[in-house]
C-alpha cells in the first residue's frame, strides 16, 4: 500500500473529529472519501498532511511511518494536498504560483511547460496576478499539485462551489489525470460524481469509517448510501 492510516485519532480542542480512522490507498488507485458536511473528510486530509495532529494511530507512506511529520517534509516525500479553499496566492502571478509549487517538487512527467499546454487558461494568464475565478483557481490548485510530480494527490472537494458547467470541466481534468495513472485520495460531496471517478471508497460519518469497498459494492449498499450520503 502506498498510503495507510491505522486507527488514527484527531481532535480540535476537545472535539474528537477523527475516531480510529483506518484506510489505505494503493498506487494507481483513486479512492473516494465520502460523507456529509462535517464528517471529517477534510480533517483526514489535513492529518495525513501533518496540518492536524494525530493524537494516536499511525500513518504510513511508502512503507515509512510519517505520522505528524511536518508538511514540507511530507510534500518533499511525494504527497500533494489541494485544500478545499484552494489557497492560491493572489499577490503572485499565475506563473509564480506554479513556480513556487515546482521549487520543492520532483522531476517527472509534469513540468511548467506541459502544465501550460494542458491548462490553456493558465498559460494565457501566466504573467498576470492570480486573481482568478473559482474554476481557474481550482485548475491552478490542481496544476500546483501536478507540477511537483507527487506520488499521491489529496484532492479536497475540487468541484465544490463551482457553477455546473465549470464543475464539469474540473471533473474532466480529474478524470484526465486519473487516466494517466495518478494516485488520488478524492474528497467529494456528490456521491454519483465521486463514484464515477473512483475505484474504491470510504464512507465517513462523525469521524468514523462507516463503510468501505469498491464502488460497485458501495453503490449496491443502498441503506448506507442513504444514511450517510446525500444521494
Amino acid at each position, binding site marked *: 500500500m502506498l498510503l495507510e492510516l491505522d486507527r488514527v485519532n484527531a481532535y480540535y480542542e476537545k472535539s474528537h473529529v477523527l475516531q480510529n480512522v483506518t484506510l489505505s490507498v494503493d498506487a494507481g488507485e483513486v479512492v473516494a472519501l465520502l460523507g456529509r458536511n462535517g464528517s471529517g473528510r477534510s480533517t483526514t486530509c489535513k492529518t495525513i498532511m501533518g*496540518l492536524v495532529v494525530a493524537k494516536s494511530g499511525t500513518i504510513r507512506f511508502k512503507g515509512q511511518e510519517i505520522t505528524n511529520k511536518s*508538511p*514540507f517534509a511530507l510534500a518533499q516525500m511525494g504527497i500533494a494536498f489541494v485544500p478545499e479553499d484552494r*489557497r492560491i*496566492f493572489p499577490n503572485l502571478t499565475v506563473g509564480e504560483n506554479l513556480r*513556487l*509549487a515546482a*521549487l*520543492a517538487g520532483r522531476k517527472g512527467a509534469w513540468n511548467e511547460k506541459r502544465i501550460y499546454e494542458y491548462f490553456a487558461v493558465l498559460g494565457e494568464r501566466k504573467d498576470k496576478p492570480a486573481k482568478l475565478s473559482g474554476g481557474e483557481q481550482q485548475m491552478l490548485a490542481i496544476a500546483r499539485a501536478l507540477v511537483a510530480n507527487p506520488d499521491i494527490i489529496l484532492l479536497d472537494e475540487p468541484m465544490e462551489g463551482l457553477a455546473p458547467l465549470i464543475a464539469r470541466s474540473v471533473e474532466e481534468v480529474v478524470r484526465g489525470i486519473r487516466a494517466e495513472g495518478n494516485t488520488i485520495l478524492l474528497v467529494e460531496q456528490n456521491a454519483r460524481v465521486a463514484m464515477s471517478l473512483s475505484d474504491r471508497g470510504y464512507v465517513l460519518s462523525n469521524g468514523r469509517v462507516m463503510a468501505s469497498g469498491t464502488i460497485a459494492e458501495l453503490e449496491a449498499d443502498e441503506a448506507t448510501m442513504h444514511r450517510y450520503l446525500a444521494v
Partner: protein
Amino acid sequence: MRRTEGLPSYPRRERLPAIHLTLAQLTDQLVNGITLGMLYILVALGLNIILGLMGVINFSHGSFFMLGAYLMYQFNGLIGFWPAILLAAVLVGLLGMAFESVLVRPLYRRIPEYTLLLTFGTALIFAQIVRRVWGDDAVRVDTPPYIPDSINIAGLAFPFYKDVFLVLLTVVILAGVWLLLNKTNIGIIIRAGTRDAEMVKILGINMPLMFTVVFGLGSLMAGLAGALAAPIYAIQPSLASEWIVLTFVIVIVGGIGSFWGAIVGGLLIGILTSLMALLWPPAVEMTGYFIMGIILLVRPRGLFGVEGLFE
C-alpha cells in the same frame, strides 16, 4: 545717545531671516531628511518583512540597529572603516538568526503578544549590555580621511558621506532588496509566505528555515543601517528605542507588508521630521505621530497596505 551704538535700528519686519538664507536651510534640511529617511527605510523594511512574513512584532529590531552602530565603532579601530561596517552588519544578521531560532521560534504557535513581550524584554537586555560594554555616554566614529568632507552640486556644498554616498548606497541596497523580492525564488517564497505561510509549507518549502533566513536578512539590514549611520549620529543606548518607535510608525504609515510603503513612509517621515526641526523645533518629536494619525484616519491600513503584499 540712548541708542546702542553701531546697531542700526531696522524696521522690525526686516530683521526676519532673509529669504535666500531660508532657502539654503530648507535645502539642507531636505537633504538631511532624505538621508535620515533612507536609513529609516533600511530599518523599517526589515521590520516590515519580518512582521509581514512571520507576524512577529520585533521590538528588538531597534536594538539590532543600535548594535550595528556600536559594533562598527568597536571594529573600526581594529580592522578599518569598510570592513568594520561589513562585519558589524554580518554579525547582527547572524545574531538575528540565532535570536529567531532560539527565542522566537518556540512562540510562533502562541498568541502574538508573547513574541511582543519577548522582544520588548530582550530590547531592554540589549540596552543594558550596551551600557555595560560601551558606557552610558555617546561614542563617535569618524569617516576615514580619504573620504572628502563635502562635494559641490549645483553650487551647493553637500556633506559627501552623509548626503551623497549614503543616499546612493541605500538606493542600491533597496534596488537589491526589490530584485530579491520580485525576481528570485526566495522572493516568491517570501511574498507567498506573507499571504499564507502554511500553504507555502504544504508546497514543500522548508518554512522554519526560511523564517530564520528572513529574520537574519531583516536584522542584517538593521545592523547595516546602524553601521552606516555610526559616523553621522551620536552612538548611544537611546538609539534603539528612538529608532524602533519611528520605524514602527513608518511601517504603519506605509502599510504592513508593503515594500513601497516602507520607502514612501520612510522618506515622508525623514523629510518632514527634518523640516520640522527648521520650522518649529518643539514639534520635531511629534511629527511622525502626527503624520501617522492623519494617515490612519484617511487610510486605516496605511498608504500601501491595501491588498498587495510586497507588490
